[in-house]
């Protein structure tokens, strides 16, 4: 085949064809990697972590309920302690009043108080 006999139209057609083929191959080469698998993997990891967090939140809710119960018990306990402390204060007050009370007693009053004490003690022992 004599290349000199090729007319200009044929040359241009050949150039266009070559351009078409080259652009086709370049287009194939430049395919973008969307890294979908990596993103999918990260989504799966996040879903797993969110699931774990949900379980922990449920667990903490249960613990909060337990704490609320304990707080109620502590409150009741404190109330009882306050009551007992006021009893202690009352007893201490009564104890401090004893000397004054006894000092003003007459002989009959002393005898009566001692009798009452002995009766109280005996009844306690018999019980």
């Amino acid at each position, binding site marked *: 085949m004599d290349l000199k006999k090729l*007319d*200009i*139209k044929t040359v*241009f057609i050949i*150039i*266009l064809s070559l*351009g078409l083929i080259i*652009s086709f191959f370049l287009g194939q080469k*430049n395919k*973008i*990697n*969307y*890294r979908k698998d*990596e*993103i999918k993997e*990260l*989504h799966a*990891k*996040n879903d797993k*972590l*969110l699931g*774990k*967090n949900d379980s*922990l*939140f449920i*667990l*903490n809710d249960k*613990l*909060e309920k*337990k*704490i609320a119960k*304990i*707080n109620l*018990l*502590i409150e009741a*306990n*404190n109330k*009882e*302690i306050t009551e*007992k*402390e006021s*009893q*202690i204060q009352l*007893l*201490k007050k*009564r*104890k401090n009043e*004893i*000397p004054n*009370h*006894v*000092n003003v*007693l007459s*002989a009959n009053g*002393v*005898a009566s*108080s*001692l009798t009452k*004490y002995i009766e*109280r003690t005996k009844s306690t022992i018999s019980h």
Partner: protein
Amino acid sequence: MALPARSQNISKEQRVQSVINEYGDTVIQMSLSDAKTILKSLLEKEINDSLLDVYTVVDSLNKNKITLLVDKIEILQNEKNNLTEIVNNLNSIIDNLKSENEILSDVIKKQKKELRKQKIIKMIALIGDVALPVATLLVGISIK
């Protein structure tokens, strides 16, 4: 017949004396102030006994309170550990989202680059599409 009351104690220095009365009963006798001292001690002892009982109850209540507080501390510790784990998990999620963001940014960058390349190719193709037929026509005319 009842015996006449008389002291059974030889020493008169003793503050408390025992005597046998006319009915034969042994009677302990002492001064009023001594009797008051004894009465004070007895009444105070009675109150002290009551105080001891109340203090025992308060002690057991305080022990109960301590047990409850220890339980509460343990639960709070567990809650704190869970919250720490939640925070760690959230930090991991943030890291994963950052990684995803980086990947997506990289993909967008590549897409932009590709888009620019495609635009250039498109332009070249367009120019070629116009220029080549025109050139062919011009050359054909000049040959004739």
